């Protein structure tokens, strides 16, 4: 999970670095296909992490922006396509991290509850023994 996240992050950073370099002097006609692909991967990753349930607002926002990026790409508006793709990727990454955090929280609560139950059992057993 985290390796996929970091790989996605690295890819995004790479794409952003290229974009930053490009924005300085390159024209708006640079095909944004790579940016859109990276963002789609981020959205897919968030979805498989359960973001649809655990971070629905962020995931919906990411999907809406992906749709606009695709539309811009189809219209050969590469500048808009790249912008929408970057925005979508930011939303998707947040969606994924929120989902992962929610899962970790519930797992932590569960383990803690089981520890508490064991401790209660131990204390009860202790009390019985002392009777």
């Amino acid at each position, binding site marked *: 999970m985290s390796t996929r996240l970091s790989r996605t992050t690295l890819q995004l*950073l790479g794409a952003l670095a290229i974009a*930053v370099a490009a924005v300085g002097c390159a024209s708006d006609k640079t095909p944004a296909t790579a940016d859109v692909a990276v963002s789609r991967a981020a959205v897919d990753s968030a979805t498989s992490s359960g973001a649809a349930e655990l971070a629905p607002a962020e995931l919906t926002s990411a999907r809406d922006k992906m749709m606009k990026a695709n539309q811009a790409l189809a219209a050969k508006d590469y500048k808009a396509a790249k912008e929408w793709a*970057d925005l979508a990727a930011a939303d998707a990454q947040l969606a994924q991290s929120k989902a992962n955090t929610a899962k*970790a929280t519930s797992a932590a609560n569960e*383990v803690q509850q089981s*520890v508490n139950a064991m401790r209660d059992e131990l204390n009860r057993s202790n009390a019985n023994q002392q009777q």
Partner: protein
Amino acid sequence: MKKLTFIPAVFAVSLFMAACSSTPTTTSMLDRARGDYMAAQNNPSVAASAPLEFKAASDALNRANDAAAKNDSLEHIDQLAYIATQKIATAQQVAHQKAEEARIADAGRQRDEVRLQQRTQEADQAKAAADQARMQAVQAQNSAANAQAATADAQARAAALAAELADLQAKQTERGMVITLSDVLFNTDRAELSADGMSTARKLADVLTQNPERTVLIEGFTDSTGSAAHNLELSQRRAESVRAALVGMGVDASRVATKGYGEAYPVAANDTSGDRQLNRRVEIVLSQNGNPIAARR
């Protein structure tokens, strides 16, 4: 520590941009991104737990600041500021996730610790149960030994009693053991015990002292010579005399009852002097098994 290197970078870029542009632009979205970034900076766990995400957020904010310094379109500044905001939030989430994972690991350690305590407790309980069982076995052994000793003691006492009663020529009857003190143990027409009578009373007192659960009924009888009233009185006095002797030897008075019957219940005809002597007697009835002595029928 790493975040400190970002600040000059952001600053330097801003200054560089400010040098060749007129008035720096800002938007509410960019202000919000800067505020969020400061909050993340003030939370040391963000840079520590999510360094990669925090660096990405830092870079994104730098780009938004650059765009503002260059007086880019407000729309573009907002886009970059939005991306920075989301990346800062992502860094916060990742830091939070790491904290929860640490909590899971800690709970796992706690669980191992509680399990160890459980095992220890189980072992302690098993040991306590074994100790208790051993103790109960010892107690059972002791009480068995005690019971055996008590039985042996009771048997010894019963044997001693039987021997003493045999010495007193006691006879087993329905009412209990009966010891007959013959006339010769009393002085003629007197109630006082003779020396032999006192010796017999001494033996009887010993029996009563060693068998405290037993009580006695002392019954006096005479022959038909003399008036009935005199005989009744004499039989009663003789019974009382035996009682006084026993009490004098340490037997509790409440354990000794007396009854004078005069010439009633003869054991022989009153026609010869030998038979009359048999009738002049005192009978001592010992209670048995803690039951009261049945009245004479």
